[in-house]
Each structure stands twice: as C-alpha cells, then as structure tokens.
C-alpha cells in the first residue's frame, strides 16, 4: 500500500490517539511539575453594633485572577513526586534512620499512602493473574468433558462475571459480603466473631478483593484456553496414551505445552488490566484498608472544589512508568524479533 493511501486510511485513528492519548500523557507530565496556588488570604475588619473584629478569609477574587493567569498553578519542580503523598523520600529516610526492626519499617512504610497503594496494586496484579489463569484452565478442562448439550449454558454462565461492569460486579459482591448480607452474615456465624466485617478487618478486605479479582478474571482465561483445547492435535494425545501416559501426564506434557503461547498472551493482557485495578476499591468501599494507584489518582481528582491536579498527575506519571516496566520484557522481545526479521 502506498504511503499516501496508508496515511489517508489511518489518519482519523491516529488523530484520535494523538489528541486523546499522547497529548494527555504530555499534559500529565507537565501538570505533575506544578502545585495548586496557595490560598490568597486577606484580612477584613467586620464592624457591627457590638464592635469591630478582624477576620481572615480567602480572597476569592484574587484567587480567580491568579488561576486565570496561571491555570497550572505554581511551578514546583519535582516536589510533587517527593512529598509525603508520593515517594515520601524524607519519610522513608527517617524510617530507615530510626526504627525498631524490620516489622516496624514495613508497617510504617505501609502507612504512607503511595506505598500502601503500590503494595496492594502489586499484590493484586501478581496474585490474581496466576490464580485466575489456573481457575480458567481448570474450568476449560472440565467444560471440555461435558456433553454438547450442557456446554452452551455452562459457557453462558461462565462468561457473566467477566462481561459485567466492574463497578456493578464489585457492588453485587460487596452487598453480599456486607455484615447483614448473605455471605457476610454467614462468615460471622461461621467464625463466631460478630464483629467481623470488611470495614473492621484489613485482611478480610484484601482476601475479598482478591476473590473478586479471580472471580471476574477467571472467565477470560477460561474462554481463551477452552478455544485452545479445541485445537490440541488429537493424534499426539492418542499416541501419548498408547505410549502409556496417564491422564495427568497427557495434560502436563501435551496440553500445557500446546497452550503455552496462549498463556503468555493471557498473562500479558491480565497483568495490564489488573495493574489498573480501581473499580473494586470504590465498589467495596475498601479505601480504608486497601487502595490502588488508580484509586489515588481518582481520589485526588474527585475533590469537589480543590482538585489536586499536580498530585494526581505525579501519581499518574509514576503509574505510567510502572506500566512501562511491566511491559518491558514484551517490548524487548518484540524489538529483538523485529530486528532479526529485518536482518
């Protein structure tokens, strides 16, 4: 295809991506270097029949003028990245300089908002992905043994947790895990602890969020692996059996190697999606016990009259760097393959 035609065909797509993906990334980087203006305070004298008093208040007029002149706020350099709500360099230094052993270090670092969010995001990402893939693989193997008539309805039901709106899905589970919901109440009576609830127990919150993650991510792996199972060469399976392979050995040495390329693809997609975990935190109202990087950005932006654009942008940039690190192995491999092809 000649360059001109190519450009003509792809132009709308590229324009949309440049305007609304590339430019916002630039905008985020720029914004992260600014902080919102400090409030301009003025002192006014209020006089009434009982005398005069001095009052300090925010000068809204001056603020509006300042914001119109410099909408980005004040230039702040890298201070957004280094302050307590982000990388917290000073605090980390203080913790390492003066602490009472390893446990103390961990618990104090965990109390810093950024590290709290980062730890949950990483745990969610790297636990949910393999667990959901395992669950999906098991369902795929099991559904494959079903008679044809039952397959359709089982697949239908299995797809639901994946297709559901993340916020809606997490709300549905959150209501069931509510202390007066069916699962929450059952948990209380099972453990004999009437105070057990998501709000009270950080451990339970993490577990329930991970369960939600596996529940909603499992079906994707299931669908992909199930389709992969249909293409397993039956000859190889038969000959493995003739050679005396047990059922487990067929799975281990024939089916799993056959599905390995698919598994790489699923793992990549799921890692990318799980790294942006966000809606479950809102749905389960879990922010007291578990937050994520995306939720931090959301929380900075959602403030009604004081949106912390600089702070949100700094977290966003750090998140984007995280995504790039996550993608690095894939990108490096593609780069190598591409260069080999070119040579």
């Amino acid at each position, binding site marked *: 295809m000649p360059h001109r035609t190519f450009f003509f065909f792809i132009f709308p797509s590229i324009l949309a991506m440049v305007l609304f*993906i590339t430019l916002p990334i630039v*905008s985020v980087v720029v914004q992260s270097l600014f902080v919102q203006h400090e409030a301009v305070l003025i002192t006014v004298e209020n006089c009434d029949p009982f005398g005069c008093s001095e009052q300090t208040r925010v000068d809204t007029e001056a603020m509006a003028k300042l914001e119109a002149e410099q909408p980005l706020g004040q230039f702040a350099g890298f201070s957004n990245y280094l302050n307590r709500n982000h990388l917290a360099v000073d605090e980390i230094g203080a913790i390492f300089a003066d602490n009472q052993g390893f446990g103390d270090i961990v618990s104090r670092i965990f109390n810093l908002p950024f590290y709290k969010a980062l730890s949950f995001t990483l745990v969610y990402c790297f636990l949910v992905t393999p667990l959901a893939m395992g669950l999906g693989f098991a369902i795929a193997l099991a559904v494959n043994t079903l008679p044809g008539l039952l397959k359709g309805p089982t697949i239908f039901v*299995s797809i639901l947790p994946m297709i559901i709106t993340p916020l809606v899905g997490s709300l549905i589970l959150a*209501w069931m895990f*509510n202390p*007066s*919901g069916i699962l929450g*109440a059952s948990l209380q009576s099972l453990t004999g602890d009437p105070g057990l609830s998501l709000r009270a127990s950080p451990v339970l919150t993490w577990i329930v969020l991970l369960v939600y993650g596996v529940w909603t991510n499992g079906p994707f792996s299931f*669908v992909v692996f199930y389709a992969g199972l249909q293409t397993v060469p039956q000859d190889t399976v038969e000959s493995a059996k003739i050679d005396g392979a047990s059922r487990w050995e067929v799975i281990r040495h024939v089916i799993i190697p056959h599905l390995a390329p698919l598994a790489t693809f699923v793992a990549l997609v799921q890692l990318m999606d799980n790294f942006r975990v966000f809606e479950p935190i809102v749905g389960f109202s879990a922010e007291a016990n578990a937050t994520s990087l995306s939720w931090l950005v959301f929380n900075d*932006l959602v403030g009604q009259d004081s949106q912390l654009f600089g702070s949100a942008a700094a977290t966003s940039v750090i998140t984007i760097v995280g995504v790039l690190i996550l993608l690095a192995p894939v990108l490096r491999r593609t780069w190598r393959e591409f260069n080999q092809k070119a040579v």
Partner: protein
Amino acid sequence: MSVATRRPAALNALILAFLVIWVIAAAFPFAWTVWGSFKVEADFFSRQSWWMAIEGTRTQAQTGSAFTLAGYEGAWVKNEFWKAAINTLIVTLSVTIISLTIGTLGGYALARSGYRYAFWILIAALIFRAMPHITLVSGYMLPFFQLNIWGVLPTTIIVLVAINQPFTLWMLHSFFLSIPKDLDESAMVDGCTRFQAFRMVIIPVMWPGVITTGLFSFLLGYNDFAVTSMLLAQENQTMVPKIASFLGSIQNEGNVMFAVAAVVSATVPLFILVLFFQRQIVSGLTAGAVKG
C-alpha cells in the same frame, strides 16, 4: 469420545462437583441480587437471617406483598435513572459506531501495509492499550476545563473512542489479516480504487469481524467508570457513574435498595447481549489470542 468412556467414575464426580461449584459461584450473585432487588432493605440486608430475603417477611409486612417495585420506582422515577439510561444509550452507540468507522479504516491500512511504520504504530497501540484510563483522565481534566468542553456527552464520546482505538485497531487488524490480499488486489485490477475495494469487496466479507469488534467497543463504553465519572457533569451522567453517586447520598438516607435496583437494571442489557452474541464474544476473545 473414546476419552470420555474410559474416565473413572470418581474423576467424573470430581469434575462435575467442581463445575457445579463454579456455576454457582458465577451465577448465584446475580440471581441473589435480582431476587433481592424486589424486597425491602430489611429483608435484603436482614440482620436476623438471610432466609428472610427469600421469603420476604418484612416486605410482606411493609408493603402487603412478597415482592415490591419500590426500589425500581425510587431509582427510575424519583432519582431519574431513566435520564442516565438514555445518556448511556447515546454514549455507547456513538462510541461503537465511531470506533468501528475509523477503526476499520485504520485496521485495514495496518493489515495491508508492509512498511516498518505500520509495525511501530501497532507497538505504540499496545503500549497505549496498557495505560490505566484514569491516568489519561487526569491529563484531560485541566485542558477540558480551560477549553470549556468539560461535562458534556460529545467530549466523553470522543475520549472513549480514542481510548478504545488501540484495542479496536489490534483486533480489526488481525481480522483483516485473515482475509486474502488477492481479494482486494483483484478488485483493484478490475478498476476499483483502494477505497472502493475496501468498501465494496472487503467490508462485506468482514462483517463477522466488525460485529465482534463492535461488541467489545460497546462493552468498553458501557462498562467504563473512570472516564464517565470524571468527565461528565452531574446532569449528564451515564448509568455507571449514576450508580456510584447513589452510593454516597442515597445509601445514607437508607435507600440502598434504589442502588440495588439500579445495579440490576444496568445488568439486564449485558445479559441480553451475552444471550444473543455468546458465540461472537467467545470468537472475539479467541481471535485476539490466537493472532495477537
């Protein structure tokens, strides 16, 4: 199948038990919430026993019948959920149509160009695909405020289309690759321009791929929370941010059943979608996997 006949009974029982547990885990939350949405709060969130939600004891006492539409009335009529539903309809349909239009053009170009830059565009799209949406949103907010285009539906639609483009491009690109080049080339030999060949020859055989990709664009627009909740003003909210706004205000007033009814209402279209397009959804996920 010869494999099935030789499977020992114990293994069969194990597989069946596992599947039954999974099917319950996948379906029960929905069934329970749909059932509970027709009860009053004291039943659905019963402090005494969950059996009350099944029998509807309190619902009977409060409304005189075991089922009540109070939650739906509260959500749709009192809190104007219908407006949000209409907005969702506008947003998702526009997103799907625009995404497919510019996506098919771009995907076709990528599939037919052998040059280096096509490869790099695909890699860039992969990276964009991985960006958490909320990080991009924090880049939009300030410029949109300045340009005074924040809060309205068209802005949100365009943003969702753009966020959706990387995925759409990848998917359609792999569908176009499966259509032989000879087809459009012979059309061009017969005197078609490139665009005519695309429009008259390729698109008619591409329908299955377009429909499948369209389903996923629809789902992205429908399920999005990050973009719609941040970029839409209160009066323009779509269903998902509306539900989120129910959580704060209405839950505190003891009207949590409004939110439950709204959640069930938002789930119904997805059920219908899966019911009719199960095969396309499955094939779409697989196509991406096999080719990608």
